[in-house]
């Protein structure tokens, strides 16, 4: 693939010293949408966090390449500077740290594209949250919209979105989808973890590749129609068996 931005090569992935996934290979092109599926506790968060460099998750052997650069040993914030950002499944709450402060800082550091961030803020309905303490006392939906906003606003090369739609109402799932579309239009590549069939239905026309994680392996990477209907029909184990001859 000539326009490849993210490449994971033979990566063994650990959390807190425990091996969760072995020999993972993954390749994402510019402006592509990839979906990662797998049962609870299969290692989706682990995969995304290790790629992003978030401790205690780590890639122990193998490589992570971003736009041709080996970033396997880069510290977390350096990866962000290079254009690889993770949206947390569950971001922590902060006291006394205002959302507006974070945005001011991001603007100064990354020189945000204001027309992009304004559209994004509009889509994700962020304005009401600006004066609030970061994630403190926010509803589930507010958290998800804000975390998606903070992640996409710097217009990264690759955005890793860990369940941006879980616990979110139908309207807000629509908003998050619009945000993803806008990002894709600006050539941001998106790796999306989701469990919701609603979201899966919505992203079908946009999806380039679906990855299935099961029992410690990335068992299959393929087209949406090869994977998703099978998972819905037979469950993860059934789908894994069919796609990989799992037993």
């Amino acid at each position, binding site marked *: 693939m000539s326009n490849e931005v993210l490449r994971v090569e033979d990566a063994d992935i650990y959390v807190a010293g425990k091996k969760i996934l072995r020999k993972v290979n993954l390749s994402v092109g510019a402006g592509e949408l990839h979906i990662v599926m797998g049962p609870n506790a299969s290692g989706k968060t682990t995969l995304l966090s290790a790629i*992003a460099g*978030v*401790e205690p998750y780590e890639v122990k052997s193998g490589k992570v390449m971003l736009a041709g650069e080996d970033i396997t040993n880069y*510290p*977390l*914030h350096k990866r*962000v*500077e290079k254009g690889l*950002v*993770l949206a*947390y499944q569950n*971001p*922590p709450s*902060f*006291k*006394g*740290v205002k959302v507006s*402060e*974070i945005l001011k*800082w*991001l603007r100064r*550091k*990354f020189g945000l594209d204001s027309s992009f961030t304004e559209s994004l803020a509009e889509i994700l309905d962020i304005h009401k949250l600006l004066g609030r*303490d970061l994630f403190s006392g926010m509803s589930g939906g507010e958290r998800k919209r804000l975390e998606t906003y*903070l*992640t996409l606003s*710097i217009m990264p090369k690759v955005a890793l979105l860990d369940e941006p739609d879980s616990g979110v109402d139908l309207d807000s799932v629509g908003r998050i989808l619009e945000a993803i579309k806008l990002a894709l239009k600006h050539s941001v590549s998106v790796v999306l973890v989701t469990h919701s069939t609603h979201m899966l239905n919505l992203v079908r026309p946009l999806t380039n590749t679906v990855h299935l994680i099961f029992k410690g392996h990335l068992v299959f990477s393929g087209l949406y129609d090869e994977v998703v209907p099978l998972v819905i029909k037979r469950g993860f184990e059934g789908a894994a068996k069919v796609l990989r001859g799992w037993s």
Partner: protein
Amino acid sequence: MLNKNMAEAARKALSKPAPYGPDVDLSKYDVLNPRRIEPTEILEQERVRDASGRLGFTPEMVRKAGYVQVNEAYLASALVESLRKQGVVVMSTAEALRKLDIAREVAWTLIRPDTDKYVATAYLYGKEQGYFIYVPPGVKVRTPIYTCLLITRGMTAQLLHNIIYVADGAEANVVTGCSIAGLHAEALHIGVSEFFVGKDAKLTFAMIHAWSKGAVVRPRTAVKVAEGGRYVSYYMIYSAVHSLQSYPKVTLGRNASTSLYSIISGEGEGIYDVGSSATLAGPGSSAEIISRNLAKGKSRVVARAEIVGESGPSKGHIECMGLILSDTAYISTVPLLDSKNPEATLTHEAAIGKIGEDQLTYLMSKGFSEEEARALIIRGFLSVEAPDLPPQVKLSVDRVTELISSKGHG
């Protein structure tokens, strides 16, 4: 000029230690004779600029300050015409005691000269240096009155007696900066402060301290708030110190209220023993004591807070938070609720911890370096909502908060 009985009692108290903080030998410090100085003499000294700069006070602010004390020399600047016409007074306490009945009437009524050796020393040898501020009934002074107490000479004993009197229905905002030139200087600062807040009057008092490794600091403060009055204090220290010990006491009349904030940033090997105490003496009174305590290096921070419910219905709340930034630092919170009335509702919360790894990692995942993330978290920890602070004062406070959080390593 000293009262015979008080002087006698004070002399006996010269060796009486304070109940808190390390005992200090006061004999090694130099007590100098007070003198008046010219503005130019003060403002052109580099050491004055150094000391005031550490408070975040610009030369402009020092020039406009109502009262400046440098070691034993003082300068009470002319007030703006409009304030003077309304009867507002800012002068040295010594001068006020010579000229004004009200000063003589209230001086030493809240703090007894024989309280401890520090007060006794200030009473006997201080010659009533310090500032006297008077705001007449009904006069609301919205622009902050700045006072600046600086030490620029090593081994100085700066002994001060400050009085603020805000008469019935009046309002004032006072900002006091205390600082020393040179980060290693040895000196003694004893500030005895008596504040009177009249009926339905309001006083906002912000105090910023920037001392040195060798500074011994013993403020002694008492405040009396009359019916319906409000007293807000905002105290910040963000420097090294040899030892600092203070425990201001506020007494509240009927329907009076107070909010007492302190932001302590301990560093080096300093001892910071700082508290606030409020007595709910009148029915309908309320008090909140809020403190944020940060300890770096080998500092020891003791955060005391006390609310005494003497009458009811009344309400008091203590919130005492500590953040430890190094393995060798120490924080202790000592909240005390003391109820003598079943209608007094008194509560407290206290917590001490370190910076959360998950918070640090999260911010780094959004591009902050570790240092930047720390600074942001510390700033968040230190920022308390203090809605009573006037905007200009808020600016000074924010500047100091910025300074503290930018050097957030243990």
